[in-house]
Structures are given as structure tokens and as C-alpha cells.
């Protein structure tokens, strides 16, 4: 039952699986993002308060969600590498960091673009915004710590440890709108019971979320393949794979 899991520790296997998965992830992501974009930007009704400006949620919320998801992935992959000394864990963690940082930046930028018409300011020192900014700094810290070591294995382990320490920030971001009185609006989708959104607005959002996840998967696959090639460049199978 666990053989598929053990196989994931083998670089050539991961390289092959990532190659096979990439087109599927891209195709499904294109479908989900395509539906979400058209339905969200054209068919969804304008918000009664925010008018058409609310539509940026279809980029902002998935990006923010992915910034947390990617960080958690990075920490989990890093701890797999740290605890069981599985090299592929570190490869996945290293491949995830820049993607997650990009999603964080995207969430911050779209958020401030949204904030300008709604709150009258691009930026407010509000708990959620600040904690998301800290997340970006944590990503940058992890990304700069890894290459600082001459021995790549040490850099991997140090970066993994730092990302595990930084995980404390993830629940703080997630619950910041509940714990503090915040300018940022409260949870609309992940509410217990009924989401505070009609279906015509909600379904495109969920579809965008799924699409972003799939897109993340696709980019992760490509980046993991790059990491594996770079890390295993001395191995014979890489030479054969590159030659063919």
C-alpha cells in the first residue's frame, strides 16, 4: 500500500511523474480558470455595495489562499526532507518557495488595488495585511537562506527548519480577521453553515480557487523537474534523459 509513497523518494520516478502530470494540470487549470474568469467577470451580478470593483476577488482571494497553501506545502515538504532525510522533500520545498512568494506578492498587489476604491487607501496597517507582508518576508528569508550554504544539503535542512518555524504565521493570517477588528472584510466563503455569497458569485470563485490550485500544481511540476535535474546532474539517468 505504501509502495507508491516510497517511490516518491526516487528522483527518476518523481521526474517522470511530474512530466506526466504537467499537461493534465495545465489543461484542467485552463478549464477552471477559463470558466471562473468568464463567469466571474461577465455573468456574476455586481455587488450591492462594491459594484463591479468586487470582481478583483476572483484573483485576490485565490492568490491569498494559495500563498498560505504553498507555504504549508513548503513546510511539510521540508519537514519530510528533514525528518526522513528524503531528498525529494527538499527539492519540492525549494521548487515551491518562489511560486508561493509570487502568489503572496500577487495577493498583496491585488489587495491594495482593491483597497484603493473601497477603503480609500492602497495600504493600511491592518493585521491581515501586515501578517501577509510578514509571510512575504518569511518566503524571502527561506529563499535567501538556502543558497547561502556552500553545502547544498545543509542549506536544504536549514531552509526547512526556518520554514517550519515560520509556520506559526499561517494560522495568524488565516484567523486575523476573526481575532482583530480589521479593515479587511471577514470570511465570506469558508464560513460554517451558509456562505455569505449567492451561488452566481460563489461558483466562479470556487472554480478560480480550483484553477489556481491546479495551476500551482502544474508550475510546481515543472519547477520540481528543474530542481531534480539540477540536483541529480551527476547521475547517469539524468545524462540519458537529457540526451534523449
Amino acid at each position, binding site marked *: 500500500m505504501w509502495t507508491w509513497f516510497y517511490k516518491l523518494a526516487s528522483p527518476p520516478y518523481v521526474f517522470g511523474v511530474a512530466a506526466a502530470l504537467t499537461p493534465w494540470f495545465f489543461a484542467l487549470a485552463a478549464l477552471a480558470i477559463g470558466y471562473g474568469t468568464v463567469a466571474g467577470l461577465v455573468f456574476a451580478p455586481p455587488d450591492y455595495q462594491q459594484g463591479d470593483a468586487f470582481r478583483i476577488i476572483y484573483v485576490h482571494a485565490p492568490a491569498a489562499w494559495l500563498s498560505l497553501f504553498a507555504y504549508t506545502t513548503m513546510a511539510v515538504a521540508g519537514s519530510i526532507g528533514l525528518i526522513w532525510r528524503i531528498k525529494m522533500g527538499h527539492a519540492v520545498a525549494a521548487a515551491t518557495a518562489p511560486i508561493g512568494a509570487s502568489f503572496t506578492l500577487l495577493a498583496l498587489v491585488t489587495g491594495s488595488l482593491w483597497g484603493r476604491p473601497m477603503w480609500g487607501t492602497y495600504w493600511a496597517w491592518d493585521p491581515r495585511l501586515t501578517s501577509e507582508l*510578514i509571510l512575504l*518576508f*518569511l518566503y524571502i528569508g527561506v529563499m535567501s*537562506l538556502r543558497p547561502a550554504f556552500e553545502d547544498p544539503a545543509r542549506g536544504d535542512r536549514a531552509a526547512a*527548519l526556518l520554514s*517550519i*518555524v*515560520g509556520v506559526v504565521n499561517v494560522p*495568524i493570517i488565516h484567523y486575523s480577521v476573526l481575532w482583530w477588528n480589521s479593515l479587511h472584510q471577514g470570511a465570506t466563503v469558508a464560513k460554517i453553515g451558509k456562505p455569505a455569497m449567492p451561488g452566481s458569485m460563489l461558483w466562479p470563485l470556487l472554480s478560480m480557487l480550483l484553477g489556481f490550485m491546479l495551476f500551482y500544481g502544474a508550475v510546481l511540476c515543472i519547477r520540481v523537474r528543474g530542481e531534480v535535474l539540477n540536483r541529480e546532474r551527476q547521475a547517469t539517468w539524468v545524462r540519458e534523459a537529457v540526451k534523449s
Partner: protein
Amino acid sequence: MKVGVWEAFLLVLRRELALSFRRPDQLLQPLVFFLIVTTLFPLGLSVQLSLLRDMAPGVLWVAALLSSLLSLDALFKSDADDGTLEQLALSGQGLNVIVMAKTLAHWLVSGAALVLVSPVVGTALAIPEAAFGTMMLSLSLGTLTLSWLGAIGAGLTVGLKRGNVLLSLIVLPLAMPLLIFGAGATDRAISGTSAAGALYLLAALCVLTCTLAPFAATAALRITLE
């Protein structure tokens, strides 16, 4: 001769303190830095006392963070350079006991000293005397937490040639919540409202790092020492 855990802790603590006090210049530098940075703000901004009082918590806390960071780099560095740290790691005592003792010693000579100087800076920044108690309490909790966070960062960067900037890059984001609650507590004390909430949160952060950070710092040292 078998040395108990508590004994080892005290031995390392005493050694660290003795080493620090034999180099008084290094002991004083972060404190002088703290005083200079807090002097820069009134000179650069305004000498109006009412305005100073509004900025005082932020100035005080940012200066405290920076001056603690300054001395963090040396936490493990000299011992790692001359091999003492490896000897300590091989001594048969748990490395986390040694890390705890070293970090506590670091706090005593940097953080606690800073807390003792803070009334002087507080007076210069026009903080009312009634707020000194809260200010010193929040600074003690904050600098102790910062020493623990810094131990993780110092452990991660100890083997690096240019680890100093990286250390700040790693530790400062983690220290931002401290700044928020610490400056918040001081601010409330200055305006005369109850600072209990922010102090409780600071204390919670302090307990959290005191219990978890030694393990993380030990793991970090093991990664870089190997």
C-alpha cells in the same frame, strides 16, 4: 566525573557571563548603540515633547530590536570558530541545555541591560514616569523572546561567512508581532489606559518561545555544525 544537567547549565551560564564581563567594550557597544539610535529620532524628526511622546514606544522598541540583533551575531560565532561549540556538543550534555544557558546569558547581558537603561531613554523621549513599569516589563518580556528567536537565527547562520545581514532578514519578520504588542503596551501605559491585554500576549509569546525555541535552535545548530 559526571556533571548533572542543572550543574552543566550553571557552568555554561557562568562561563558565558565571565567571558562577557571580561570584554566590557563588547558589553557596552549594543547599549551605546541603543542610546545613539534613540537620540537620532528626536534630532531627525522634532524636539517637541508632545510629538516625541507619541513616537516614543515605536522608537524605543525599534531601537531595542536593532540593538539586540547587533549582539546576536556573536551568540555562537566565537565558540563555533575556535571549536568550543563542537566540544560542548560532544560533552555528553544535551545540546539544548547548553543552548539555553548561552541564550539566557545573552539576554542577561544584552536584553536585561537594555531594560535597565530604558528609563533614561524613556525620560529623554518624554515618557511619563507612571508608564516606566509597563515599559520595562514589556521590554523584558520582549527582549527575552527576541533572544530566543535570535538563537534560532544565529544557529542557522553560524557557519556562514556573511551571515549578519541574513540573520536580520530571518529574525526581524519573526519579531514583528513582538514590536506590535510591545509598542502597543507601552503606548497604552503612556496614555494611561490598561496595558494588560498586550502584556498578556507578550508573556504568552515569551512562554511559547522559551519552551519551543530551544529545540529549534538546537536543531539549527546541529544542521550547521555537522
